[in-house]
C-alpha cells in the first residue's frame, strides 16, 4: 500500500557511478552559466569540456596515484585554456585577468574534487561494470564508452544553450543578427539566466544518461560566478555589494537545501540542478540590492 519513493537506479549502478564520477558537472555548469551566453563561447566551452571529460573518464578507469596527479594537472590545464579562451573572446581588462584566474582556480578545485572520489568508487564500479552482465551496451570499454556519450551529449547541449541564449539576448547567432523581436532582452545573457540554464542542462543530462547529481558541489559553480560578477562591479561599493549578495546567496542556499529535503523534486533535478536553478532565481530576486 505505502510505497517508498526511493528509486535509485540500482541496475545501472556500476555504469552510473563511474560516468558520474568522471563527468565534470561543476565544470559544465560553470561554463553553461558564464560562457554559453553566446554561440561562439558556447562552442568553445563545449569543445574544451568534451576533450577534458573524455580524458578525465579515461583516467577514472585507472586507479593509481599517478592518474590522480594527472587529474589535478588536467584540471589546471583546463582552467588555463578556459581563461585564455575567455580573454581572447571577450577581451577582459587587466583587472579582469586576475579575477578571472581566481574564479577559474576555484572552479578548478571543484573539477578536481569531483574527479577524486572516482578513486574509491572506480575499482568496484569498474570491475562490477566490466563483469556485470547486461548493464553495459559495449563490452570491455563500457565505462569509457558511456562517459564519452555523456560528454558528447552535454557538449552538444552546451553549444545549443549558447546559440539559444545569444538569440534571446541579442537576436543574433555567431554575431549575425537574425531577429529584432521584442522577445529579445539582454537579461537572457546574464548570470542569473545562465545558472538556470546550467541547471536545466544538467537535468537533461541526468535524465538521459541516468546520472545522479545529488550531493555535488554547487558552491564550486556559484562562488566563481559570483567572483566573476565582481568584475562588472565598479568601485569598492559595488564590490562590497556583490560580496554581500554572495553571502546572502550562500546563506539562502544553505537554508533552501534543508527545505528541499522535504520536496518531491524530480529525480533528474535532484541535487545540483535544482540548486543551480535556485541560485539563478536568487540572483534575480536579490537584484534589488
Amino acid at each position, binding site marked *: 500500500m505505502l510505497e517508498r*519513493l526511493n528509486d535509485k537506479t540500482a541496475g545501472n549502478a556500476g555504469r552510473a557511478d563511474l560516468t558520474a564520477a568522471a563527468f565534470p558537472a561543476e565544470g559544465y555548469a560553470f561554463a553553461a552559466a558564464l560562457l554559453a551566453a553566446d554561440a561562439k563561447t558556447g562552442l568553445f566551452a563545449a569543445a574544451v569540456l568534451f576533450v577534458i571529460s573524455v580524458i578525465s573518464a579515461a583516467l577514472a578507469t585507472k586507479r593509481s596515484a599517478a592518474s590522480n596527479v594527472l587529474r589535478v594537472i588536467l584540471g589546471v590545464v583546463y582552467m588555463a585554456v578556459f581563461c585564455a579562451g575567455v580573454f581572447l573572446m571577450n577581451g577582459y581588462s587587466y583587472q579582469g585577468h586576475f579575477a578571472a584566474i581566481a574564479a577559474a582556480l576555484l572552479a578548478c578545485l571543484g573539477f578536481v574534487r569531483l574527479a577524486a572520489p572516482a578513486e574509491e568508487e572506480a575499482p568496484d564500479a569498474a570491475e562490477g561494470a566490466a563483469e556485470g552482465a547486461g548493464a553495459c551496451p559495449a563490452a570491455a570499454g563500457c565505462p569509457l564508452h558511456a562517459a564519452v556519450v555523456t560528454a558528447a551529449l552535454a557538449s552538444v547541449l552546451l553549444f545549443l544553450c549558447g546559440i539559444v541564449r545569444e538569440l534571446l539576448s541579442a537576436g543574433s547567432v555567431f554575431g549575425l543578427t537574425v531577429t529584432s523581436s521584442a522577445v529579445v532582452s539582454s537579461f537572457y545573457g546574464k548570470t542569473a539566466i545562465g545558472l538556470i540554464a546550467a541547471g536545466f542542462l544538467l537535468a537533461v543530462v541526468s535524465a538521459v544518461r541516468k546520472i545522479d547529481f545529488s550531493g555535488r558541489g554547487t558552491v564550486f559553480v556559484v562562488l566563481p560566478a559570483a567572483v566573476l560578477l565582481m568584475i562588472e562591479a565598479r568601485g569598492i561599493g559595488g564590490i562590497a555589494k556583490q560580496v554581500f549578495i554572495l553571502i546572502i546567496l550562500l546563506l539562502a542556499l544553505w537554508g533552501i537545501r534543508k527545505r528541499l*529535503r522535504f*520536496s518531491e523534486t524530480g529525480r533528474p533535478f535532484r541535487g545540483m540542478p535544482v540548486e543551480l536553478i535556485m541560485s539563478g532565481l536568487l540572483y534575480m530576486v536579490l537584484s534589488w540590492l
Partner: protein
Amino acid sequence: MKRSDFRIRDRGIFPSGEWDKGLANDRPFESIAPQTVLLSECQGGGSRIRFLCEPGQRVARGEKIAEPANFTGVDLHAPVSGVVKEFIKQKMPNGELTYCVIEADETQPATADFPYMHEIVQPEAFDRAQLLAAMKDGGVCGMGGAGFPAHIKYAAEVDFDTIIVNAMECEPYLCCDHRMLIEHPYEVLNGLLAMRKACGADRMVISTEENKENAAELLRKIIAENGLEIEVAVREDKYPQGSEKQLIKQVTGREIPSGKLPADVNVVVSNVHTARALADMLYAGEPSMTRGITVTGLVNRPGNYLVPIGTPFTDLIAAAGGLKEEDVRIVLGGPMTGSLLAMGDEADRLPGGVTKTSGGLIAIKDRGLRESPCIRCGSCASACPMGLTPYKINAAYLHGDLPLCEQLLATECIACGSCSFICPARRELTQTSIRARDEVRAMIRERSAKK
C-alpha cells in the same frame, strides 16, 4: 535557554459533535446473553494470556481460565458458565489470534445486588497489599487502552501525588464510559477511592469533557453528598485530550519526558471501566468479566451494551438491528485509533468477540480516499498534540530517510490520527508517522545493541 511559553495557539481537532456521540449518548446499557463467547488470547495491546482450560471442560462463571503469558497479560475469568467447546484461530487486525470458545449454559447465575452499587464505601477494610492482590486476582487491567496490568502499575515504588480517572472519552462516536458514569457512578467512585488508597495519592481527579456535563453534575452531586475530596474537571471536547500524556499535562501541568511513564511524574491514570472493575472485585468478589461497548454508526439501532467479555461481535451488530447499509467499514475501537475489523458485507460472520479493552464497534461509511500532493498548509503541524510536523515526517519517510525521521522526533508520535484527519490532501500521515516511529525505534535499538 528555554524558549518563551508563548504559543500562537495550541490547536487540536474537533471531530465530534451531535452527529456522532448523539447517536448513542442517551441510550442506556442493554445487556446481551450470548450463546457462545469468544475469548481472545490478546485482551489488549500486546498482552497475551495462556488458557488453562481444555475442550470439553465445564467452567463456572468467575472461574479463572487463563493466566498471563507475557509481562502485560492478566488473569482471565470465565464470563459465563458453560462448556469449553474448542480453540480456534481467527484473523484479527493485530494478527492471527487464538480464541477459546465457550458454549454458554441456558441459564446463567443471577447477578446479585450489593451496597457499593448504591453508596460510597471507603476502602478502610483493605490495606495496600490487599488492594494490589485484588487487582491481580480480579484480572484488572487498563480497560481504556492497552490493557496494562493494574496491579503492576499501582505497585510502582513511586511517590504518587495525583490519581486521575480518565473519563474524557474524546474519540468520536464512543459513549460507553459516559453511560458507565451515569448508570454506575458509585462503582466508579468506589473504585477510585480504592485505587487512591492503593497508590497513596493525595489528589483525586475525574476528568471529563463538556459533552458529558450530565455525568459531571451527577458525580459532583454524589461527591458533595458524601463529602469526598474528588475534583471533577470538565474540559472542552477537543481531541485527543483523553490521551494520557495530554491529560496529565492538562490536569497537573507536567509533561511526561520522552520515553518515560506517568509514574515518572508521580501521576497514575486509569479508565472509568478499570475503576469499576476494581470495585466489583473488592466489594462483590467479581473478577473483571463484563464491560460496556458502544455499537454505533450506520447501524439501525445505535446503542450501548454492558456485556460479558467474549460476546461475539456478530451478536452485537445483530442486537443493534444490523447494518443500515452494506457499504461500510466495521471498525473495532474508536474511529480515530481503532482498526478495521471487517467490511460491511461480512457483518454476519465477524471474527472475534469483546475483550477487556474493546470500547466500540462502529460502522463507518466506506469512502474511497485518494491522496493528493501535500500543499504545505501546515494544518497537521498545528493539530499535532505532540508538536510534531507530520508532513515532514511523511516526506522523509517516503524518501526512506530514517535518520531524518529520527531528527524530526517521529519517535514521539502517539498515533492519535489528528494529522490524517485534518489533512485536506487526504495524505496518509498517521500511517507514515506510525511506521516511521516504529522503524526509527527499531533503528535506535539496533544502534544501542551494537555499542
